[in-house]
C-alpha cells in the first residue's frame, strides 16, 4: 500500500501546530523576556525609595520595639517580619513584601519592595523546567517542534516548495546560527 506521506505531513504539521500554539507563544515570550535579563528583571517588579529612620547608632542598642515604631512612621507597620545586622553599622529589616537596609550611623535607609511580575513570572518559571512532568512535556514539545519544522518543509510542492524557493530560504535561515556557532 502506498504511504500517504504528504497527507501525513500536512496533518501532523497542522494539528501539532494548533496543539502547541500556546507553548510556542509561552517559550517565545519568556525567551524574549529572559534574553534581556541583563537590562531588566523579567520575574519581579522591584520598587525602591530612600528614607531616614530614627534608630540608635549601634546595633547592640536596637530593639524590635524601636524598629516597629519606625516602620509605623513610614506606613509599614503591619509588614514587619524580623531584623538582622549585616555589621555593627548596617541593619536589614525583613518585611512581608521586601526589606529595608539601614545605615545606623545616620539612619539613611533603602527600602525595596518586590512582587511577581504578572504573567511573565509564571511563564519564566515554566521556561526553567520547574517540575519533572513539565520537563517531559517540554521534551515532547521539542520533538514535535522538529516534526513541525520537517513536515512544514515538505507539505508544499512546486516552485514554492522545498525544491523551489524553499531550499534557498532554509539555507538562508541556517546561515545565522551556523555563523554564531563558529564566531561566538
Amino acid at each position: 500500500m502506498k504511504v500517504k506521506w504528504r497527507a501525513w505531513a500536512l496533518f501532523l504539521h497542522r494539528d501539532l501546530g494548533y496543539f502547541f500554539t500556546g507553548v510556542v507563544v509561552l517559550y517565545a515570550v519568556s525567551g524574549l523576556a529572559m534574553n534581556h535579563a541583563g537590562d531588566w528583571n523579567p520575574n519581579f517588579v522591584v520598587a525602591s525609595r530612600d528614607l531616614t529612620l530614627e534608630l540608635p547608632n549601634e546595633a547592640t542598642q536596637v530593639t524590635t520595639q524601636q524598629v516597629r515604631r519606625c516602620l509605623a512612621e513610614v506606613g509599614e507597620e503591619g509588614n514587619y517580619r524580623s531584623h538582622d545586622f549585616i555589621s555593627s553599622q548596617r541593619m536589614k529589616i525583613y518585611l512581608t513584601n521586601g526589606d529595608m537596609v539601614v545605615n545606623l550611623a545616620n539612619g539613611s535607609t533603602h527600602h525595596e519592595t518586590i512582587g511577581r511580575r504578572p504573567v511573565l513570572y509564571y511563564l519564566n518559571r515554566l521556561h526553567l523546567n520547574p517540575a519533572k512532568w513539565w520537563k517531559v512535556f517540554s521534551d515532547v514539545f521539542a520533538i514535535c517542534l522538529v516534526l513541525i519544522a520537517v513536515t512544514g518543509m515538505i507539505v508544499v510542492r512546486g516552485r514554492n516548495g522545498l525544491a523551489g524557493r524553499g531550499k534557498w530560504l532554509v539555507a538562508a535561515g541556517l546561515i545565522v546560527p551556523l555563523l554564531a556557532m563558529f564566531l561566538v
Partner: protein
Amino acid sequence: MNRYRRPRLSLLSTLGLIALFLAAGCQQTTPSESSLPVADPHPAGPAKTGILLVSHGSHSEQWRTMLTQLGDEVQTELVATEGIDGVKSAFMEYTEPSIATRLKEFDAEGYTRVILIPILLTVSSHSFDDIPTIVGLKEDAKSLLTLESEGIERYTPQATVTLAPLLDFSQLLEKNLPRRFAELSKSPAEEGVVLVAYGSEPFNEEWEAFFAHTDEVVQQTTGAAEVVHTWCGHIAHYSGDPTKQAIDDLLTRRERVIVIPVLVARDEGFQGRIIGGAVAESSAPERVAYAGDAILPDKNLNEWIVTIARKLQSESTESPASE
C-alpha cells in the same frame, strides 16, 4: 477542495496518547515533593550531630568535583570527632544534592543537630539571606520569590540548624593568596597583583572593606609592588572588562602583573572565559602571569572546617539551650 486524503489514524488519537503520557508523568514528584523518607524525629533519642558543607553550586562538573573532594577529605577527621556522627555536602543551587535533600536525609537518619558550614568567601545574599531562608531560619521576601522561581526547595528540618561563620572569618586568604602568588612571581618588587573575586551588589560595602584589607595583607606578605581587586560576578555582569581594565591599569605602572582568582573552585566560565579572556585580551598578555587556579585545594581550608565544626559542636554540647 482538500487534495489530501485524511489518514486513517486521527491525529487526535495521537494527541490523546501524548496527553495520557503526560498524565502519567504528572505522577512524578516535583523537586519540592521529594520522595525521600519522611523525617522520623527522635525527640527522646540520643543527640546526633551532622555536618553539612554547603557551597554555591555550579554547572561546571570540575567545580562540583573540587567541592565534593573537599567533603571527602574532611569526612574521616570530622566523624572521628566525638559528638559528630556524619558529614554531607550540598549545593545551594543548580544541581543535586541540594540543601533540602541533605537536610531531609539528616532528619530521616535521626540527627538532632546540623552544623551548616557555608563554603562561601564573605557575606552575600546567599550567606545572609538565601541559605537561612532555605533552612527556615529567615523569611526574606526576595529570597522566597527567587528560590521559588529558580525551583530551589526550602526545607525546615526537625534537627536544629547552626550556621557556621564564613571563610573570611578564618583568615584563610592571608595564607592562600601569598602561596599562589609565590607560584607565579619572579620579582615581587616589580609586580602588581590583580585579585579577581565574585563581588556582591547588595553587600558591596562589606566586600570592598574585606578586599581592601586583603589587598593590604597580600602586599605586606608578598612584597608585591601593588595589589588591587576587581569583580567578575553578577555585579560585573559576568564580564571580563573590569578585570581587563585592572590588568591594563597595572601594566602601565608595573613590569609584570599577576592575576589571582579569589574564587572557591575552578569553573570554566569564570577562570576560563571571563578572567582568562581578560588576560588574553589585555594590552600585554606576555607580561601577565595567570594560572587559572582557585582557593581550593588548600589544606588550611580543610583544617579550618574541622576546627570550626569541632568548636561549634563543643559549644552546642556546653550550652544546648542557647538556641
